[in-house]
């Protein structure tokens, strides 16, 4: 069911410059060529009854309800499948049409309760609305005829149920699964009266390939597919547009509310990142916001061995402030700092870094992007001048070749993956570079042209080999390079790329990717005409993460794949506000807009605005904070929205560092792992409880709107203000819009951003200023932000994390669709139905050698530590490589990861850890094996 108040125009918009004028019931209307009659009528405010048509799906023409009369044509054509023609005169109402429609509706209603009170949607479903629209008040066919009322309800999905007795077999759900989601999990089985919608091979929804994106539920015009929350709570009375708090796609949602309770989250049709689509997390996994585990009262304790004591906000804040001051007085101004989070709004991250720089008086502020995409910032800023993705998401629709590197979009960024899959089904070619097979390689109607299954840690060698092919085979876009790039640096780079040691044959020995495949992929990429790179943490979380980003920039510049739609380099950001938290000054060396703290002119502007001197030296980065804690020079930390004890590498090292600190203030919604080392706990607010903005992976700033009252009484920005005030540095804002106004005043790329404009435009992609008053969908058009693009030599340097006889396998990590990062939110939702436990994927050859069986317990030992988890034996990983997710704290994946990090940014090398894997008898009491393995690898089926 659509969101309340959504208008459905019947069929999708058409993209054509040619306009066609028609008349509908005497009303003139002009539309793009190719537009359907039903849509043209809707645009003229003439509603034509319909059931199988909806504007998110291609027309189907099956329900026969949207019939019209067209002057000069015989019969009654379906208005959904009939395109407009110039001068067409359409009649939507006549006696004959009314009779036909009523007869059709009568047949539908003969197998469906006509009484709206029996409708689970309270008579608000489209079926009942259409019955009213055609004036159907009585069904002539007897109740005791053949019907589908006996069919059992499929209640297996945790979030929605399917009642086949209410299904009218309109195929909207099937088409939504095919066209929008691209999973093809649903079908219509049987013919005639026996036609029935089924999931998978006539399985329960939960057991089928269904990924629970909710597209079918949204498309359903009846009460056959309904959210369980809506069935339980009834129809919402209002809808509030807000932005999802999960991944970096930043989907726009309508939170439907009844009183102070959320009834359901419905993807916003007008949302530009997602165009009305959603995934299982954003659509359904929001229940954590009111989970009983939520902490609602501030707490303090003198020692971490003491029990927590609930106190007032005033007491908690006063205690925290006094302790920070004591530590600074005793150990120096630089002995304390703060960590912002990509989970928080731009305004909150801005305030935390302001508190650190202004109230603490140092630059010891960092953000969790340190441990994910900091190499993206370094690499793209160095090469192009801006540390951000170059395109908007819609750009992928113009791509001819899509290269996915170190990313698993169907699991990590599922809504964007659906957009990408649609383009691939329409003919774009696909290159996948990953140590592990991902779902995108082979899907319905899509198969990757090249799968470059490289050894973890060898991305740079692969990119260098691709550019070698481009340089030595005359595939350089000479015109682009001559016009757009630094000539001297290009010349030197070109010589480097052409060297034999960068050839595919040489790279094959490093990467294990056959040279012929590298050559083929490079040629395909260069051929385009539009080739785009999409990448994830499989690129950045390496000792050469920044080098790899630079190498991709070289590849894109050399082939001219920048500065227009359909091309570009696009980081798929893991969390909702990775881009934004970086934009607003969360790194220790940069103020807002990525300007270095040593820039005295820029610093002076902040000093004037903040009325305080700002340290011109960079502060500590997160890994440096831990090291400094252990040497006694960093002993106080304010952490907002980040569970560093669980998410940062080498957990034992992190635990030792946190244990050494004298004051840790954790500001979060749950008692997380880091809180075990904390002295003050400040209860946070979820994204549903506050106002602010998030900035997604395409630089799109979107509003976060308060849907529920803050459970702990304060929104997070209010808490940071209160802490700053307690520290003696006044922060006085009455609404987050004032914080954004301050960011805009101090940041040239945000100069044109305001809440008023966001409300008016829906969202804005920065840069937004006088040059681009409504934002910038595609960057570097005509010229790079830094002027000329900069080629840099990207020598491959093998990681120090080497395999050996003791640690012969390489462990790499990733995410799964239904869980999110360290699982703080998703483990507290129905999503545990799919992934109750992390498992270790191991190749059959490696498993056989070690006597490891499917679902048996194994011990994973690295140079840093040992963990135990169950094995999943699969050919998705290559021999010599093992893989796990890190969604459950008991897995302790970061117990084994090491402190190796990217040379430029200190981003940890999560993706390469040398390990040994051996069978163990540990943890025999946990979940049944069949459930765990089946649940953990849905994409592997």
């Amino acid at each position, binding site marked *: 069911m659509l969101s309340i108040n959504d208008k459905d125009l019947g069929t999708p918009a058409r993209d054509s410059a040619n306009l066609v004028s028609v008349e509908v019931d005497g009303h003139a209307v002009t539309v793009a060529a190719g537009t359907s009659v039903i849509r043209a009528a809707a645009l003229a405010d003439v509603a034509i009854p319909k059931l199988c048509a909806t504007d998110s799906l291609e027309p189907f023409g099956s329900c026969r309800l949207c019939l019209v009369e067209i002057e000069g044509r015989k019969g009654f054509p379906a208005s959904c499948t009939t395109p407009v023609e110039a001068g067409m005169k359409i009649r939507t109402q006549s006696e004959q049409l009314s009779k036909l429609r009523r007869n059709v509706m009568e047949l539908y209603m003969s197998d469906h309760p006509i009484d709206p009170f029996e409708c689970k949607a309270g008579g608000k479903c489209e079926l009942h609305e259409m019955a009213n629209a055609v004036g159907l008040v009585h069904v002539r066919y007897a109740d005791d005829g053949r019907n589908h009322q006996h069919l059992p309800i499929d209640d297996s999905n945790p979030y929605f149920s399917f009642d086949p007795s209410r299904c009218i077999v309109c195929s909207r759900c099937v088409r939504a699964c095919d066209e929008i989601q691209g999973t093809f999990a649903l079908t219509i089985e049987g013919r005639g009266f026996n036609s029935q919608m089924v999931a998978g091979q006539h399985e329960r929804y939960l057991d089928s390939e269904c990924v629970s994106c909710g597209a079918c539920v949204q498309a359903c015009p009846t009460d056959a597919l309904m959210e369980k929350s809506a069935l339980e709570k009834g129809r919402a009375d209002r809808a509030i547009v807000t932005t999802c708090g999960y991944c970096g796609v930043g989907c726009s949602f309508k939170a439907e509310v009844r009183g102070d309770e959320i009834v359901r989250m419905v993807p916003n049709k007008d949302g530009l990142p997602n165009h009305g689509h959603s995934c299982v997390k954003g659509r359904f996994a929001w229940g954590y916001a009111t989970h009983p585990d939520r902490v609602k009262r501030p707490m303090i304790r003198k020692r971490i061995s003491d029990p927590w004591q609930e106190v007032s906000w005033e007491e908690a804040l006063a205690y925290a402030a006094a302790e920070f001051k004591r530590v600074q007085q005793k150990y120096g101004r630089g002995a304390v700092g703060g960590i912002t989070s990509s989970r928080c709004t731009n305004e909150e991250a801005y305030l935390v870094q302001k508190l650190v720089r202004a109230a603490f008086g140092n630059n010891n502020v960092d953000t969790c992007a340190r441990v994910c995409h900091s190499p993206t910032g370094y690499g793209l800023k160095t090469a192009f001048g801006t540390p951000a993705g170059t395109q908007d998401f819609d750009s992928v629709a113009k791509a001819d070749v899509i290269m996915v590197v170190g990313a698993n979009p169907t699991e990590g960024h599922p809504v964007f993956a659906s957009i990408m899959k649609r383009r691939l089904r329409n003919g774009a070619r696909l290159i996948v570079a990953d140590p592990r097979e991902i779902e995108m390689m082979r899907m319905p109607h899509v198969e990757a042209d090249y799968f470059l299954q490289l050894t973890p840690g060898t991305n740079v060698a692969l990119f260098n080999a691709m550019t070698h092919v481009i340089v030595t085979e005359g595939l350089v876009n000479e015109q682009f390079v001559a016009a757009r790039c630094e000539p001297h640096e290009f010349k030197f780079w070109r010589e480097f790329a052409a060297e034999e040691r960068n050839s595919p044959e040489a790279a094959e020995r490093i990467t294990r990717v056959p040279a012929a495949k590298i050559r083929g992929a490079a040629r395909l990429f260069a051929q385009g005409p539009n080739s785009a790179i999409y990448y994830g943490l499989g690129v950045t979380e390496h000792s050469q993460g920044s080098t790899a980003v630079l190498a991709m920039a070289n590849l894109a510049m050399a082939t001219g794949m920048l500065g227009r739609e359909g091309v570009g380099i696009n980081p798929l950001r893991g969390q909702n506000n990775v881009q934004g938290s970086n934009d607003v000054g969360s790194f220790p060396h940069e103020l807002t807009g990525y300007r270095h703290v040593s820039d005295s002119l820029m610093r002076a502007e902040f000093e004037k605005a903040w009325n305080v001197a700002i340290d011109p030296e960079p502060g500590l*980065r997160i890994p*440096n904070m831990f090291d400094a804690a252990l040497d006694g*020079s960093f002993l106080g930390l304010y952490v907002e929205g980040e569970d560093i004890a669980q998410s940062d590498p080498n957990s034992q090292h992190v635990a030792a560092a946190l244990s050494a600190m004298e004051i840790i203030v954790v500001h979060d919604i749950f008692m997380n792992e880091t809180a075990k080392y904390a002295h003050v706990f400040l209860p946070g607010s979820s994204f549903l409880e506050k106002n602010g903005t998030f900035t997604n992976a395409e630089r799109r700033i979107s509003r976060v709107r308060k849907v529920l009252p803050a459970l702990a009484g304060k929104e997070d920005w209010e808490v940071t203000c209160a802490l700053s005030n307690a520290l003696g540095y006044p922060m006085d804002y009455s609404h987050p819009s004032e914080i954004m106004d301050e960011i805009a005043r101090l940041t040239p790329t945000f100069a044109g951003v305001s809440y008023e404009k966001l409300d008016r435009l829906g969202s804005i992609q920065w840069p937004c200023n006088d040059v681009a008053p409504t934002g910038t969908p595609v960057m570097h058009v005509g010229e790079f932000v830094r002027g000329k693009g900069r080629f840099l030599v990207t020598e491959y*340097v093998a990681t120090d994390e080497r395999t050996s006889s003791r640690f012969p396998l390489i462990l790499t990590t990733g995410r799964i669709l239904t869980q999110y990062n360290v699982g703080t939110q998703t483990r507290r939702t129905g999503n545990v139905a799919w992934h109750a436990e992390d498992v270790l994927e191991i190749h059959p050859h490696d498993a056989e050698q070690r006597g490891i069986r499917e679902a048996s317990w194994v011990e994973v030992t690295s140079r840093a530590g040992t963990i135990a988890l169950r094995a999943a034996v699969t050919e998705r990983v290559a021999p010599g490589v093992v893989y796990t997710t890190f969604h459950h704290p008991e897995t302790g994946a970061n117990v084994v990861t090491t402190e190796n990090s990217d040379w430029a940014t200190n981003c940890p090398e999560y993706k390469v850890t040398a390990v040994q894997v051996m069978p163990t008898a540990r943890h025999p009491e946990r979940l049944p094996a069949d459930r765990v393995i089946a649940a953990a690898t849905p994409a592997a089926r």
Partner: protein
Amino acid sequence: MDIHHLVKMANDIGAFFASSPDHEVAVDSIAQHLKSFWDPRMRNQLIEYAGRDDGDLTPLAREAVLLLQQKQRPA
């Protein structure tokens, strides 16, 4: 802070800039990277160590650290 860790980090930075065609540019780039991204306490500890280093720092990284030392000296 753990000096071995700092030395490794400096050497890693050096390994990236080692491919620069101009030695002076490479040395300067490393020094500039340390100045731009490292907290002063880390830089100072490394500078102090470079004076007594017996080969843990690569020659290029050591040269850069010594240049950094010069740059940090008050004029």
